[in-house]
């Protein structure tokens, strides 16, 4: 394509979105069906550039009669925050999710924002057994009413597959499966197992992993066990375990793993099918079902076996993952077992170098294949309905861009030319895979059905880390009881009686406020002046190595959001420049030697930055009237497509 032609098309699609305008029908009547695809992390600029280059022929075709808008995402542009806006039509103050990570003002401890688990409160003790009389429960912290509840009231058959920020799924008659926020059976957001014959590797303390040393006898046999969830009925809550046997054949670089009647034969690099496990709580009476996949990482000089986090079995879920409860079982019986963990690709395993890039690609593509199978099944069902709504969510592009960015970014400090030569531009490959999803959709869905395809944010390089706690220390806003701050945490070392601000979360910054924080020092009447001072200094911060400004926006939450959940809100949301993101340890209260330093991790792309720099995508096969759409406008638009007026508690407005 000639450069002039490309520029013309670029200008047309973004600056004058109705350049391709042919479909005006959507606003003129109440529709019987609406289809929405959620592709996490789909960046509008990348999609458009590749489409116009001819690399994404189906997206190009879609745009010949449809539209692509750059859409405002939420501050911060984090998936649970932005998708909660999509669910409720509100800003973060209207549903109370401001970050993946919130803090408890009474303890300053980081906590997961989306849900709380309430343990069983009444027990009968029988020897070492502790029998709960009243079960515990898990509570969704996302406030606001989900838009499908309005569809339900209008008698519209709705299916919502894996939308983030909906675990446990809110009560509804709609068919829903929970997405990001769904834990594994250890109660974490993904803890994997590594069994290794390398003693040194077995001694490592890796984030999000449990590592076990395995010793082989002269016949290449070994025994190990999987440590499962704690036995809820035992006084000591000892872990439930499942033993397994390994038969290693070094010559053929393969192994057989025998576990609960399954004989799993794997060659080096191969991934198993889903294996169903049964953790017996009381033999023959009560058990906890789990599903795992195994990858034989090495089977020659070293033996290394990966077992995925213990995911909830959709056929017999131990945790609430769907509405109705039978829906996940229905899907698993029709399509086979599918991934249920909120963030299913094991990014930690690659960050920890347990995985090779190749292992991560194998796992990621299988997740995408499973999502496609569910989409195909649900789309057929949707098309057979007289009146219905379908939302289908994809995580693979987001997780892939996080991990594959450095493969195609020569300026990234973690750029690996050897892996780039071997695996190519995997980000571009993922966009090509999603182009096929567009193609399939256009082929199957009649033109008179409104289609919306949205992402929650774009993507950017993550080359440099910024530790806001270290910056606060150096600026005198945070005081520690130690001079040796590298590796310290505010929870252990902060002198709270002398500290005025602290950082928890991927974008959150808090004032140590009297009357709110346990040991608050800043009087409410002094808060505003201090906030303006900190904001000004953050915006002036310079990267000593590059001279760039790492921070381009600082939002004061009480100025921009609804007040319903202000008590949970960080006082500031820090908007990083492209190339920068919050340091990992700063997000959980840690400090590092330098304020700004290189990000040496496969987790090399990110989006938790200034929302203006990672706008979301909004594709539609109908014209919209607002040229500056926002994420919170989507639910009002869906309702309007069905002829339902926007509820007064929604901030967003219909785009048609």
């Amino acid at each position, binding site marked *: 394509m000639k450069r002039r032609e490309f520029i013309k098309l670029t200008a047309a699609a973004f600056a004058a979105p109705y350049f391709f305008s042919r479909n005006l029908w959507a606003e003129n009547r109440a529709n019987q069906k609406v289809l929405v695809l959620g592709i996490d992390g789909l960046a509008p600029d990348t999609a458009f550039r590749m489409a116009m280059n001819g690399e994404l022929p189906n997206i190009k075709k879609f745009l010949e009669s449809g539209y692509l808008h750059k859409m405002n995402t939420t501050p911060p542009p984090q998936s649970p925050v932005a998708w909660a806006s999509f669910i409720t039509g509100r800003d973060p103050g209207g549903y109370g999710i401001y970050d993946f990570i919130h803090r408890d003002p009474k*303890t300053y*401890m980081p906590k997961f924002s989306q849900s709380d688990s309430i343990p069983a*409160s009444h027990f009968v003790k029988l020897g070492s057994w502790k029998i709960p009389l009243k079960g515990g429960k898990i509570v969704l912290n996302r406030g606001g009413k989900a838009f499908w509840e309005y569809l339900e009231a209008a008698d519209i058959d709705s299916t919502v597959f894996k939308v983030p920020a909906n675990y446990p799924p809110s009560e509804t008659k709609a068919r829903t499966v929970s997405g990001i926020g769904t834990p594994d059976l250890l109660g974490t957001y993904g803890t994997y197992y590594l069994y290794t014959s390398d003693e040194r590797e077995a001694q490592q303390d890796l*984030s999000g992993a449990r590592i076990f040393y395995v010793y082989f006898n002269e016949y290449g046999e070994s025994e190990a066990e999987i440590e499962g969830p704690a036995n809820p009925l035992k006084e000591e809550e000892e872990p439930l375990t499942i033993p397994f046997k390994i038969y290693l054949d070094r010559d053929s670089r393969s192994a057989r793993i025998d576990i609960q009647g399954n004989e799993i034969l794997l060659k080096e690099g191969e991934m198993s099918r889903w294996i169903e496990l049964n953790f017996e709580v009381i033999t023959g009476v009560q058990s906890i079902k789990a599903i795992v996949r195994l990858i034989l990482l090495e089977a020659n000089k070293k033996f290394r076996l990966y077992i995925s986090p213990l995911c909830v079995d959709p056929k017999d879920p131990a945790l609430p993952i769907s509405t109705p409860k039978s829906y996940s079982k229905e899907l698993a019986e029709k399509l086979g077992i599918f991934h249920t963990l909120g*963030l299913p690709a094991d990014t*930690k395993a690659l*960050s920890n170098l347990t995985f090779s890039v190749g292992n991560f690609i194998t796992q990621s593509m299988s997740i995408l294949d499973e999502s496609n199978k569910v989409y195909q099944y649900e789309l057929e069902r949707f098309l057979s309905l007289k009146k219905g709504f379908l939302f289908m969510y994809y995580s693979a592009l987001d997780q892939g861009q996080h991990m594959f960015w450095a493969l195609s970014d020569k300026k990234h400090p973690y750029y690996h030319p050897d892996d780039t030569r071997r695996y190519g531009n995997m980000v571009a490959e993922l966009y090509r895979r999603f182009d096929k999803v567009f193609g399939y959709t256009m082929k199957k869905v009649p033109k008179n059905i409104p289609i919306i395809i949205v992402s929650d944010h774009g993507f950017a390089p993550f080359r440099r880390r910024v530790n806001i706690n270290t910056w606060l220390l150096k600026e005198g806003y945070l005081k520690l009881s130690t001079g040796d701050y590298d590796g310290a945490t505010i929870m252990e070392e902060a002198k709270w009686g002398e500290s005025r601000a602290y950082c928890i979360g*991927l974008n959150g910054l808090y004032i140590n406020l009297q009357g709110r924080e346990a040991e608050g020092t800043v009087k409410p009447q002094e808060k505003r002046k201090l906030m303006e001072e900190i904001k000004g200094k953050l915006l002036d911060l310079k990267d000593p190595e590059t001279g760039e400004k790492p921070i381009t926006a600082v939002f004061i939450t009480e100025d921009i959001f609804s007040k319903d959940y202000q008590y949970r809100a960080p006082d500031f949301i820090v908007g990083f420049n492209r190339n920068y993101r919050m340091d990992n340890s700063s997000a959980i209260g840690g400090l590092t030697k330098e304020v700004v330093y290189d990000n040496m991790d496969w987790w090399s792309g990110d989006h938790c930055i200034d929302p203006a720099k990672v706008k979301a995508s909004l594709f539609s096969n109908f014209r919209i009237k607002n040229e500056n759409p926002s994420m919170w406008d989507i639910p009002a638009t869906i309702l309007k497509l069905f002829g339902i007026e926007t509820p007064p508690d929604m901030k967003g407005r219909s785009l048609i």
Partner: protein
Amino acid sequence: MAKKIKISDEAYEKAKEIVEKKGYSSVEELLEHLVDREYTEHSEGGSEEDRLKGLGYIS
């Protein structure tokens, strides 16, 4: 055996509001949960950090 505790009227009203919003069955259940959470955080330390690391963003 259960113990009785005294809390201010203001705290009780706030607790009732949370019970309603978050689906607890009673103020007692809420208080037991809060105590349990505090106890876990202080006695085990770092467990929430381990849980969060599974997200990948901070590993």
